[in-house]
């Protein structure tokens, strides 16, 4: 399925903001993303499997807090990272 990434993460994806990944849940999808782009998952999710405080994940434009959220092949996943501070 289509995954849209914020600019701070494109160093992992050869500067592509739109990539493909697979998974039956958000957790599976992030694991697949990390296989394709090693290191990217830990920038989105911490070691306790919590989405980092200034990251938001949307599935079909609805924000999701749980990595257990089931996904369908045609879903679109959007990762947003806050850019803030001076």
């Amino acid at each position: 399925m289509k995954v849209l990434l914020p600019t701070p993460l494109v160093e992992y994806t050869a500067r592509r903001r739109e990539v493909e990944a697979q998974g039956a849940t958000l957790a599976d999808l992030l694991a697949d993303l990390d296989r394709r782009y090693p290191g990217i998952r830990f920038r989105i999710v911490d070691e306790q499997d919590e989405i980092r405080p200034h990251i938001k994940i949307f599935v079909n434009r609805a924000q999701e807090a749980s990595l257990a959220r089931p996904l369908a092949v045609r879903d679109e996943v959007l990762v947003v990272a806050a850019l803030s501070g001076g």
Partner: protein
Amino acid sequence: MGRLRILVGSRKGLFALEADRGRRKWSMSGPHFLGQVVNHAVLDPRDGRTALAAVRAGHLGPTVYRSEDGGRSWKESAKPPAFDKAASSEKGMSVSHVFWLTPGPASEPRRWYAGTSPQGLFVSDDAGRTWRGVAGFNAHPQRLAWIGGLQDAPPDGATLHSIQLDPANPRHLYIGMSAGGAFESFDDGATWSPLNRGCAADFLPDPDPEYGHDVHCLRVHPVSGDVYQQNHCGIYRLDRAASRWERIGRAMPRRIGDVGFPLVLHPRDPKSLWVFPMDGGTVWPRVPIDGKPAVYGSRDAGGSWRRLDQGLPRAQAWYTVKRQAMCGDGLDPLGLYFGTTGGEVWASFDEGERWHCLCLHLPHIYSVEAALAD
């Protein structure tokens, strides 16, 4: 080992200053990691090629980058420092940022240590490619008592730092914590003991608490094994035949006081050290006293101090020098360097007698570390 290379970590990236061993002509390269926080970057003195950088990209979580060419190119660690996953019934810990990096002993050329915020200790045995937690500290049943709660943490987060090795015994480790105090382990990190007797913690009710102190910078002398400490309340020395710290900062001029962040030891002379005093009055401005920056040096292990400010601004300089932002270069005479929160790097090539500005206009500097590059 040929050229002298200084890695400068900042709030907005990493820079490198380079000179020949005469230290006459300097060049600057970078930035690497532009826009990302670099809390610490260290070139390994054991090989002059491996370098590690503690990096955090905004809100994206912490990591470590590693270089095999002295800091010219970088690759991310495959497994950065991270706490163990907690049981589902417990609240687990998450590394906010990697704060401190220390190369291991000469006998283990691929070993490195890392300290994090919140206070965690990590080790790598493959030159920073992968990291694992030191369970003897991170899972110690007393750890939470030692480090306290949110009210004990500095504004930028509580940290484990100043990871130091006993030159006579690489299994003997020291750490400093802000907050938590100084601790030591004689078994490569398996067990830990507080090492704070004699140190003030004037923000705690107990006049001589066992732990809970605010260590700013702790250094072990590479020849004598004696330990020096700049902490929130003063400057201290612990002769390793003793078990109680002596407040050597009492010999500083009363008007200057003995609050500060960094502390640098002479690598060959166990009695020579340098500090950068800060205003620790009232609301703790943490700036040079009266806006007049000065390094203070001692040649008698802290028995007396001398002001070393020739070449530094005479007035209206209000920066801070952070705990990783002052170092020596190991050459003879020893070169000393410090970086400021105003983005300046200053150098002395005669052990603090005269100071020269190497560069201006960098971002807020967090760390300055020198080593000879291969």
